[in-house]
């Protein structure tokens, strides 16, 4: 799990162009939206693309996506449970 969380941090920094952010700056349990990383709606769409492109996981249900994108840890847990 820790390895997947580290990998996700790096992927998110790259995909969302968070140039001033380092992986160690990101708290795996901090909210991705609002406080924490303060991502916006376009970032949410990029995260959906990332999940499909890099993990083959398609998030079509908005309420599921909202839960999955609570934090980096919830993303990692979802990937671990659903990755084929």
């Amino acid at each position, binding site marked *: 799990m820790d390895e997947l969380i580290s990998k996700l941090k790096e992927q998110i920094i790259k995909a969302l162009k*968070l*140039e001033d*952010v380092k992986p160690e700056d990101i708290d795996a349990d901090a909210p991705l939206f609002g406080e924490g990383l303060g991502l916006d709606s*376009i970032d949410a769409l*990029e995260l959906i693309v990332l999940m499909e*492109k890099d993990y083959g996981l398609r998030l079509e249900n908005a309420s599921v996506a909202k839960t999955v994108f609570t934090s980096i840890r919830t993303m990692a847990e979802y990937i671990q449970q659903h990755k084929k």
Partner: protein
Amino acid sequence: MDNFISSFIRISNNLVSLNGAPFFRGSAGEEFEGFIKQVYKSLGITYSTFYKMDNLSKLGFIAAEILLNTEKKIGFAPEKTGIFFQNSSSSLDTDFTYFNTIKDKENYFPSPAVFVYTLPNIVIGEICIRNKIKGENSFFIAETFDPEFMEAYVEELFAHELIEYALCGWVELFEGNYEAFLYFVRSGKKLSENSSVKAKLHSTETLKKIFTE
């Protein structure tokens, strides 16, 4: 009443000049992305959205940031400021970037973050958000910078008192070639309230002259 240009900026060939004087010189041979990042860092600002912008928006944003920092010292009302830009390549540079994310049906992952920049007027939106500018705005496509058109269009808005300030100019970028030329116009009425400002008459002749300066 006459209106006046209180400042202008040019960014091209790894050089930023403000009111005709060098402001920032980038490293020789640096590509646009590296150069504009150098300018951003030199301004000492923290605005993480900058990194998410496409290259056209980065160019316009940085030019506006430097010019408006100068204008803020004199003072202007963002809610009465309009933005009017021109270029020849529209958002084609980013359109191609987006096309590359969708051209392969086997590897079809359209990027929402790229897609949002596939309109040239997004650069105006970025500047408005940053500076809380709420006046009229338009982005025109022309083969080359058209001072006659720009002067007449902006003067018309001033004449109808729809704006009191205007950020105008040329913001062109395509395949690594770039050129920004922005200027700030103040209504004569507002300028007379601050007689210490050195300004040039807003006219086609002035625009032709400072465009090549």
